[in-house]
């Protein structure tokens, strides 16, 4: 039915409009009007559906959402949902009107009414959804809007606390509900409630039936503030009172009850149903009504009373009988009306007197007679006095309980209900007495009847309390019939008078017993205060605090800031994982060892020694760097031994560049630091490192042991004829896997750009604290180490050789480049040779002089290198081939003869440019930095001297 979409959509629309208007419009009336009008319009839109419902049809509508997973936005207006819809929209309408009077000038209206409408829509969504996933969605939305409304006055710390707490608790339930719903969905094959009900036998046999029940109960109990999750509701009273009345009394908190009622047909035969639902409900009812009596804050009293009434409804549903469920629906209906009236009148009281504490109130019957009248009526209804609607509901409920007791031959239930009702009556009396009749502690000034906006809803609801009682068949029966039809096949008639039976006796005991308790209230409260206090808040705080502390501990242990620990965990992870796989055994095989001249063993031994020396000397940095150089030389030797001349060449130039770089950086660092690490740590690390080393060695040996098949033969087979090169490694590099090389020079260039930024984004040096685990610097004689060292950094000999070597050296570089495709060499090596030779000029002449002699913008050089490589690759596009498709061609030139030029050469040229550009850029930048540093130091020294001279 199309109108269903209006019912649910209009409040959302109102919310959206409020949000949009909030940019410009500030007037409260506008928003209140939008909100109230849409509630009204929504109610009107619901009328055709309600009519259809009474005619025996079930209005529904489906909007596919994720149909492939069976998730749809499907609405279905069943009886209970219809009753709730009316309740939500009617009370929502009244609340919107009331709030317009309630809010103050400096309360931003858009946020309030926007959230209120959002809630209205979501709540209607909850009660109308047939698709359980959609129900969960709306369910969470009610939580969210409740959060926003509780925190409406966010400048109050209690409001923030209450909002946060309510969100956490109800969201916990929401997630449980979702899980339960998912389980139901899988058990039944559908998320549509109407479908699930049809296969309920199948669902009941499914092994997820019980878990689903438990999860759904958790959802319901948290939402309806059932023990032990009740504690959030009193804290939610920080919300503006209309919100308390609407969400936290009349509607939202009843969503849990709604859920129990909705799922009642499926679950009520489950053996856990009565003990859990009935037990929790009764306990909540008893506990909360008792606690309500002792509250100092009138809203807290109302909050606990709500909790208690919710417990009542839950308990009734827990009976598992259709009659009980119907009673729950009736109690729900009546409670919504009188509790809303009570809240709204409490709101008026607070609005007028600016206090909520009983101690500071009293005698308001004189100051605001109209309000008081209706408030007292509502309180009387709450106490269960005939002929009001409270009495109506209670009688019905007691009757249902009585039947249940007869069936189970136990009157404990009746006894407990009576006790709870006594407390209920007594706190209702207390509310009326202390606020309206008791002598006020001090005379009021400027307290009077409120504006019409505020009063009207109270009058309406208060009157309704009476009307529902005395004219139940008019004011209750139609809606009740619709609502109860979901839980009960035959809907009973409601009537005020059930005769002098057990129920009436119970009511009587409650009404008079309540009066007695009220009289002895002071005594009871004293007694209560002497008992050990249990407080849900405290548990919640303890829990969250524990969570925070635990989380902090965990985080500080893991994310401790210690790189060493990070590495330990990472390495240990790898070791444990691989070891767990390798422990299966059978993987290790010792390979056949190829014989070698014993001299190569010397090379390996030197390498091992030098590597260990590097580790040992790490605090004596120069030594360590030189040890590292020895390692480098030996690695080069190994490359040669293992038939990899290209690698040897590359490593060689890289080695030179690395040494240059490390020393250039070491210029700025302490040359030696004290070794303050505890030896134990070092031994631990060494042990771990040894473990890693042994692991790598064994793994490698085992890999050696197996025969080897590889794709590489292809390269030998095709390098010459398809790629035009004889140096297979180079051909792979620039052709078969040229894309890797493009990536490699990109990395190179990026590093260059990054280094440029690191050096050129100079900052003012600021004094910062020294840290506790800072290495201690050994004071070496300054003339040895600091930038101010004595002596020229160059000699004519160096300069001359640097100059002389440059031209032939560059030719060698060109040679390595030119021949790279056919012999060891290539763009990278050539680039580094070029860089090393020009770097030599930097060393011999200094950065300043070279810059004047050699006008190259290194960043442009890098870009040109990239461009060259890129264009070589893109060139293939023109011929319709993929990126980097190469070609080669022989050119016949006069004198020069036949020259082979593969397109890959231009690619390699790009490599050369990038490499040379980056290395030279780094060297010149570091040189520039050193020069500036020295200038700074010199300036400082001079300034010092000048200061001393004065």
């Amino acid at each position, binding site marked *: 039915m199309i109108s269903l979409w209006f019912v649910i959509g209009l409040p959302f629309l109102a919310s959206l409009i409020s949000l949009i208007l909030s940019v410009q419009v500030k007037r409260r009336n506008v928003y209140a009007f939008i909100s109230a009008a849409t509630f009204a319009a929504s109610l009107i839109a619901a009328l055709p559906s309600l009519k259809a419902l009474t005619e025996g049809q079930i209005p529904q509508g489906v909007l596919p959402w994720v149909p492939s997973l069976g998730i749809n936005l499907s609405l279905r207006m069943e009886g209970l949902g219809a009753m709730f819809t009316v309740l939500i929209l009617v009370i929502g309408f009244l609340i919107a009107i009331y709030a317009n009077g309630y809010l103050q000038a400096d309360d931003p209206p858009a946020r309030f009414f926007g959230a209120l409408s959002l809630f209205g829509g979501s709540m209607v969504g909850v009660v109308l959804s047939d698709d359980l996933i959609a129900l969960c969605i709306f369910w969470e939305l009610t939580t969210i809007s409740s959060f926003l409304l509780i925190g409406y006055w966010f400048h109050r710390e209690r409001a923030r606390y209450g909002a946060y707490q309510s969100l956490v608790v109800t969201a916990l339930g929401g997630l449980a509900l979702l899980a339960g719903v998912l389980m139901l969905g899988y058990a039944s094959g559908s998320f549509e409630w109407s479908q699930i009900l049809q296969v309920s036998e199948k669902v009941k046999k499914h092994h997820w039936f019980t878990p689903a029940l438990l999860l759904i109960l958790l959802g319901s109990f948290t939402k309806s503030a059932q023990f032990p999750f009740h504690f959030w509701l009193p804290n939610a009273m920080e919300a503006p009172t209309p919100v308390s009345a609407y969400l936290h009394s009349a509607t939202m908190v009843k969503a849990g009850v709604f859920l129990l009622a909705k799922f009642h047909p499926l679950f009520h035969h489950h053996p856990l149903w009565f003990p859990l639902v009935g037990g929790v409900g009764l306990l909540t009812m008893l506990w909360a009504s008792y606690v309500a009596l002792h509250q100092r804050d009138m809203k807290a009293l109302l909050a606990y009373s709500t909790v208690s009434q919710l417990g009542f409804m839950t308990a009734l549903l827990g009976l598992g009988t259709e009659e009980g469920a119907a009673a729950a629906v009736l109690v729900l209906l009546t409670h919504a009306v009188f509790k809303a009236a009570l809240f709204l009148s409490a709101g008026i009281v607070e609005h007028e007197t600016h206090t909520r504490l009983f101690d500071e109130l009293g005698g308001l019957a004189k100051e605001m007679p109209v309000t008081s009248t209706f408030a007292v009526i509502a309180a009387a209804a709450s106490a269960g006095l005939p002929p009001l609607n409270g009495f109506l509901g209670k009688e019905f409920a007691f009757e249902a309980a009585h039947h249940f007791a007869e069936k189970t031959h136990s009157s404990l239930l009746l006894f407990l209900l009576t006790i709870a009702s006594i407390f209920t009556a007594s706190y209702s009396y207390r509310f009326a007495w202390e606020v309206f009749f008791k002598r006020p502690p001090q005379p009021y000034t400027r307290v009077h009847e409120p504006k019409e906006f505020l009063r009207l809803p109270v009058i309406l609801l208060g009157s309704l309390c009476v009307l529902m009682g005395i004219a139940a068949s008019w004011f209750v029966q139609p809606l009740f019939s619709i609502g109860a039809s979901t839980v009960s096949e035959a809907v009973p008639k409601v009537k005020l008078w059930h005769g002098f039976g057990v129920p009436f006796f119970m009511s009587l005991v409650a009404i008079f017993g309540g009066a007695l308790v009220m009289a002895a209230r002071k005594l009871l409260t004293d007694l209560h205060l002497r008992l050990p206090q249990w407080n849900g808040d405290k548990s919640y705080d303890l829990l969250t605090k524990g969570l925070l502390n635990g989380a902090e501990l965990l985080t500080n242990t893991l994310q401790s800031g210690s790189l060493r620990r990070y590495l330990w965990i990472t390495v240990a992870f790898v070791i444990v994982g691989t070891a767990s796989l390798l422990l299966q055994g059978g993987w290790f095989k010792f390979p056949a060892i190829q014989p070698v001249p014993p001299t190569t063993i010397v090379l390996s031994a030197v390498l091992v020694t030098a590597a260990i020396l590097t580790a040992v000397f790490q605090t004596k940095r120069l030594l360590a760097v030189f040890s590292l150089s020895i390692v480098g030389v030996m690695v080069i030797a190994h490359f040669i031994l293992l038939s990899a001349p290209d690698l040897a060449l590359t490593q060689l130039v890289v080695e030179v560049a690395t040494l240059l770089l490390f020393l250039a950086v070491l210029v700025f660092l302490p040359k030696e630091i004290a070794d303050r690490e505890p030896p134990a740590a070092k031994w631990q690390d060494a042990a771990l490192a040894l473990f890693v080393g042994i692991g790598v060695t064994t793994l490698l040996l085992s890999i050696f042991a197996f025969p080897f098949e590889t794709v590489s033969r292809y390269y030998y087979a095709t390098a010459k004829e398809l790629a035009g090169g004889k140096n297979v490694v180079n051909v792979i590099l620039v052709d078969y896997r040229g894309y890797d090389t493009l990536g490699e020079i990109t990395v190179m260039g990026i590093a260059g750009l990054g280094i440029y930024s690191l050096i050129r984004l100079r900052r003012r040096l600021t004094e910062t604290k020294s840290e506790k685990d800072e290495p201690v610097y050994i004071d070496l004689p300054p003339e040895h180490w600091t930038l101010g060292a004595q002596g020229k950094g160059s000699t004519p000999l160096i300069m001359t050789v640097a100059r002389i070597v440059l031209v032939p050296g560059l*030719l060698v570089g*060109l*040679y390595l480049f030119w021949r790279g495709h056919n012999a060891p060499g290539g763009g990278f090596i050539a680039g580094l040779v070029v860089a090393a030779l020009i770097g030599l000029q930097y060393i011999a002449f200094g950065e300043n002089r070279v810059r004047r002699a050699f006008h190259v913008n290194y960043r442009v050089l890098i870009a040109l290198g990239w461009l060259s490589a890129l264009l070589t690759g893109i060139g293939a596009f023109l011929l319709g081939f993929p990126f980097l498709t190469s070609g080669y061609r022989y050119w016949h030139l006069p004198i020069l003869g036949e020259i082979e030029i593969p397109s890959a050469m231009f690619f390699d040229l790009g490599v050369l440019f990038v490499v040379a550009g980056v290395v030279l850029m780094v060297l010149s930048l570091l040189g520039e930095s050193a020069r500036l540093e020295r200038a700074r130091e010199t300036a400082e020294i001079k300034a010092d001297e000048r200061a001393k001279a004065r």
Partner: protein
Amino acid sequence: MTTSQVFGQWWRLRVRALIALGLLWCLLNNRLSLSEFALGVLFGAFVLWLTKGFRHERIWLEREWKAIFLLSDFLKQMVIANFQVARIVLSPKINLRPALFVLPLELDNDVAITALGNMITLTPGTLTIDVAPDRSVLFVHCIHTEDVDATRKGIKESFERPLKEVLRCSPKRVS
């Protein structure tokens, strides 16, 4: 400067350099052929153009035969030096009388000084440690000498004088 002088200088400097680079290219490529040489000259020219900012003075060789004589003498000395070193190193007890002495220079250009310095380093028991910033003296270490003056004289006679004749240098280019 006359045309012929300009041409002469161009000839002496550029063409010889290009020929040398062409030859170097042939050596590198292990192939003595005209096409290889031509390619070398081409690349050499490119390199020369690239590095033009780095050249400060122009040097050339004169009396090439004398240069060759100097070279062979140097090689001979070098081999002898090494046998001496070997003897010292292998002798059961090393008993040395090293010296640090000053060698006044008569050379006028850095290339020659460098050549001398390198030769000193590579030959009998001597090692160039430093050059005075004003290029007036070399500071030399000698591994074993009884008579410093004789050593000094030996160096000057056998290396410095021929070098002075062989290596020529133009005044610094004004840039």
